[in-house]
């Protein structure tokens, strides 16, 4: 009876739920109803950022946040290509002054060997102010309010929002200098300390000095950087500072566009340096303090991170210039408007691709990448062109593609006796034969859904030094120019090279043993099997047996460090848009096995190194291009990598999101984007009406089950013992 009574009540509950949902708001909306028409962009993150301290952060998922919070002196133009640096915190682009060893000014044309130092004088914009933050709060007497918190005060605090008072102050040149000193902080482990230590005058000495000091301090003892000077970096006046670097180093300006050189106020170090706050996980690594367009107001990387407009940010407007086609694409419509255009950006934790994709289709995320699982659902190839599928078109979704400033490759370890330098010309021909046999065009088509461009050298398109794969620019060791397009050399040519290398038909001509090559890879599992099988088939075309050695990331890195791998897969993503940032991957002195550098193939060619030393600090121009061409020619000849591909990024966004343009270098693109929240809400309601009949059907099914069950049970209860016996 109770069951029946419950069954009678359930429809009432259902009806109430239906009435509650009758205002048309979707039931599956993961955001509060109050935000429905807010000027808020919805995005996601899949992994908790490890660092938000600009001195430590280096990963792209960390830059997603801090590049919008901090204000380095320079930034990349959002629309112009090739990538162009423009002022951000600085008033103008700094022009280096070259000095000789005696400190005398040299002309710009002075040869690199005469230049002992380059001095960058950076004048910052006046009137820039920090986001409201308790580190700046002051009491009635003007003293910092929260710099000497008692244990009792700390006990009542769990997050930064628990501090009632905040303050702000104007950005000063000294804050930029303070941050450069922080690069040398012994507890912060800046990944660029060693590199910058070799360039910025006095940085290494400061690092040694601070390390010695830290040894004498307790574990969390405060190191007051203001008590230590950095000889090469000076505050000239309140809004000007200078940085002296050793020699000529034009790439330094690119570093000035990275958060490593963004200002951090000393007050922040003093505030967060209180041990009690660290115990509550209130650190600068968790709660940034910046002068950029946004500030992090919610940092719960277990669930959500929220950027909100910094009320003290101003003075920056949407660019009025871009590429020629930008105006037609509507990308200049907001020219001159104050930035940022979006008030709030909510990043929700979304670890898995499938829920993320489905929520994008429901309108709960404004933009999305395209995973291999969803590729066919999103795009199609028609006549060689990539277009959106009909379903995506109907939803008003837009597709954008761009070539990443990255390169993927299959590397040979040049220390390996079989494929490396020790093998001499035989090994070189073997490497070339493999380079021809591994059909990158097929790989891109099968495994990347066409999202990539075969590489003919290490420098990706869009970066000075890259040569288009035309009749002049192709890698002639692997391709021929036929019918107006590069054609991969035939497998017969590769077999011929292999025979010349001493392995006719994939067997050692001397011993008759089959040629075995070993590929160390972190790829494993069902998804990777097809890809690895494909590689085995590519090598088998030459009769070579490829042995896959599945390993984990740590072991692979260890093998690369020790120089014991034979073949391996790796990729490189540019720090800055300069050829040096790719060509250094082959620089002998940076060999992984020797110096733990980034030259994972341990390639060493004195001629290449000589050219590299000449070209690396040269300004872009015909002379540098000629040197780069010579270096790339050497690399193609020596083939330390199987040149694989430059990845192509595909991204989707809804029609209500405007001003999106892929920019591989800039990470602070949020401030330029604009959205139509009213249209978004309208479409969300249209796309997500709750379907209620399944609930009614489920209830009916339960009732249908309960009723016969109850009848059967009653029959059984009322049955006499004799009935049972008769049966």
């Amino acid at each position, binding site marked *: 009876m109770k069951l029946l009574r419950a069954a009678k009540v359930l429809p009432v509950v259902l009806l109430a739920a239906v009435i509650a949902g009758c205002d048309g708001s*979707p*039931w*599956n*909306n*993961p955001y*509060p109803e109050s935000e429905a028409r807010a000027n808020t962009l919805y995005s996601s993150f899949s*992994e*908790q950022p*490890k*660092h938000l301290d600009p001195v430590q952060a*280096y*990963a792209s998922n960390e830059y997603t946040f801090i590049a919008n919070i901090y204000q380095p002196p320079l930034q990349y133009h959002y629309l112009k290509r090739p990538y162009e640096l423009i002022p951000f915190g600085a008033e103008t682009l700094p022009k280096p002054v070259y000095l000789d060893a005696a400190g005398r000014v040299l002309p710009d044309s002075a040869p690199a060997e005469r230049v002992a130092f380059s001095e960058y004088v950076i004048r910052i914009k006046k009137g820039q102010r920090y986001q409201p933050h308790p580190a700046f709060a002051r009491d009635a007497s003007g003293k910092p309010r929260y710099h000497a918190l008692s244990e009792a005060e700390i006990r009542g605090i769990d997050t930064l929002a628990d501090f009632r008072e905040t303050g702000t102050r104007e950005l000063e040149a000294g804050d930029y200098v303070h941050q450069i000193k922080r690069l040398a902080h*012994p*507890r912060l*482990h800046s*990944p*660029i*300390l*060693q590199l910058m230590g070799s360039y910025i005058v006095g940085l290494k000495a400061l690092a040694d000095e601070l*390390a010695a000091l830290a040894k004498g301090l307790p574990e969390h003892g405060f190191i007051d950087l203001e008590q230590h000077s950095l000889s090469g970096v000076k505050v000239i006046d309140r809004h000007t500072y200078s940085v002296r670097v050793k020699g000529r180093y034009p790439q330094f300006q690119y570093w000035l566009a990275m958060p490593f050189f963004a200002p951090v106020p000393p007050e922040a170090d003093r505030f967060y340096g209180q041990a009690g706050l*660290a*115990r*509550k*996980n209130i*650190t600068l*690594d*968790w709660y940034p303090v910046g002068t950029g367009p946004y500030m992090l107001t919610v940092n*719960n990387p*277990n*669930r959500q991170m929220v950027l909100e407009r910094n009320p003290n940010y101003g003075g920056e407007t949407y660019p009025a210039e871009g590429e020629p086609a930008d105006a037609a694409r509507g990308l200049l419509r907001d020219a001159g408007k104050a930035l940022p255009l979006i008030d709030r950006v909510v990043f*929700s*934790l*979304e*670890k*898995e691709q*499938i*829920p993320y994709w*489905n*929520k994008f*289709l*429901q309108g*709960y995320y404004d933009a999305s990448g395209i995973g291999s699982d969803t590729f066919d659902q999103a795009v199609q190839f028609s006549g060689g062109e990539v277009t959106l599928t009909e379903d995506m078109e109907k939803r008003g979704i837009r597709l954008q593609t761009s070539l990443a400033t990255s390169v993927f490759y299959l590397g040979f370890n040049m220390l390996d006796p079989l494929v490396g330098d020790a093998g001499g010309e035989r090994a070189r021909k073997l490497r070339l034969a493999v380079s021809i046999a591994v059909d990158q065009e097929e790989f891109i088509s099968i495994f990347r859904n066409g999202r990539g461009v075969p590489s003919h050298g290490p420098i990706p398109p869009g970066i000075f030094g890259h040569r288009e794969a035309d009749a002049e620019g192709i890698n002639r060791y692997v391709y021929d120019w036929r019918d107006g397009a590069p054609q991969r050399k035939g497998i017969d040519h590769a077999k011929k090279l292999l025979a010349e290398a001493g392995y006719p038909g994939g067997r050692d001509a001397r011993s008759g043993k089959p040629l075995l090559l070993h590929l160390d890879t972190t790829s494993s599992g069902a998804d990777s099997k097809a890809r690895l099988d494909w590689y085995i088939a590519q090598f088998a075309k030459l009769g070579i047996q490829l042995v896959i050695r599945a390993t*984990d990331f*740590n072991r692979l*890195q*260890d093998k690369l460090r020790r120089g014991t791998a034979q073949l391996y897969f790796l990729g490189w993503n540019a*720090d800055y848009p300069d050829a040096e940032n790719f060509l250094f991957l082959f620089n002998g002195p940076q060999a992984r096995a020797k110096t*733990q550098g*980034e030259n994972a193939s341990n390639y060493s060619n004195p001629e290449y190194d000589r050219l590299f030393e000449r070209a690396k600090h040269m300004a872009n121009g015909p002379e540098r291009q000629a040197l780069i061409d010579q270096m790339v020619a050497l690399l193609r000849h020596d083939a330390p990598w199987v040149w694989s591909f430059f990845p192509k990024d595909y991204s989707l966004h809804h029609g209500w999101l405007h001003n999106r343009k892929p920019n591989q270098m800039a990470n602070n693109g949020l401030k330029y984007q604009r959205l139509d929240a009213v249209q978004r809400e309208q479409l969300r309601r249209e796309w*997500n*009406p*709750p*379907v209620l009949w*399944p*609930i009614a059907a489920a209830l009916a099914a339960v009732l249908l089950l309960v009723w016969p*069950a109850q009848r*059967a*049970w009653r029959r*059984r*209860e009322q049955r006499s013992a004799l009935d049972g016996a008769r049966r």
Partner: protein
Amino acid sequence: MSSYLLRRVLYGLLVLAGVNVLTFALFFFVNSPDDMARAQLGAKRVTPEAVEKWKQQRGYDKPLFLNEKMSGIERVTETVFYTKSVRLFAFDFGASDQGRNIGYDISTRMWPSLAVQLPAFVIGLLVYITFALLLALFRASAFDVGGVVFCVLLMSISSLFYIIGGQYVFGKLWSLAPISGYDGGFEALKFLVLPVLIGVASGIGGSTRWYRSIFIEEISKDYVRTARAKGIGELRVLFRHVLQNAMIPILTGVVVVIPLLFMGALITESFFGIPGLGSYTIDAINQQDFAIVRAMVFLGSVLYVIGLILTDISYTLVDPRVRFS
């Protein structure tokens, strides 16, 4: 009873010590302190000096188990094992390898785990036992056979399929609940419906069959026949006699799980974006954060030991014949 409990606690301490040593040995069998440093410092421009400095500051530059450079007790205390693992016994979890306070993180992340696990556990228990009792009531009928086949069918489906299928059907196709996400307070309710529903549904097959077999076994006992012979109704027999006497095997499987509800569910939390301890552990494993891994394994072991002790205590409550010895 108190001496029994004391003995169990002491056994538990031994188990915890063993788990601690095993976790430590296994972790450092596949990861070296260098690997951990590199995982934390990132993939780009990591110098050997930076790795050494990282290890030194976090105490990973010491030998693992025995410091031969030291003498006396310091041979043992000046090791990674002693400095990192022994203090766990005082529930001092210390800081993660990223520098965050683990105890604080656990205290904030256990609630979302519990918010999903507890209702799924309670509702699940009610559904499974009710369904199993129904099957037992109609045993050997078409309903029973159909129910068992249904259970076997449900058991044959991967738990991942329940999650993805549930998200697709309820979240996407019917738009009845958010596909994933989490919020605080009452707002959390709409995010909990789907994971709880899926959590319950995914357990129906296995659990119902398990409880059914317990009830069927119990029903065939003499005291049930006696009760029926005395004219007691079937429902009363089932609920007052069978259910009560089946409590010991039920409690064996159930009580031990209760403390572990805090630990969360790894896959569910990952797919539904629930910021609980399950995803905390998975993230730590992926990031090779030994400090968190050891803390979570230790906590899991403690809770399991507590669960076992609670199970023993619960036996005495449901069956007065059981006495500690």
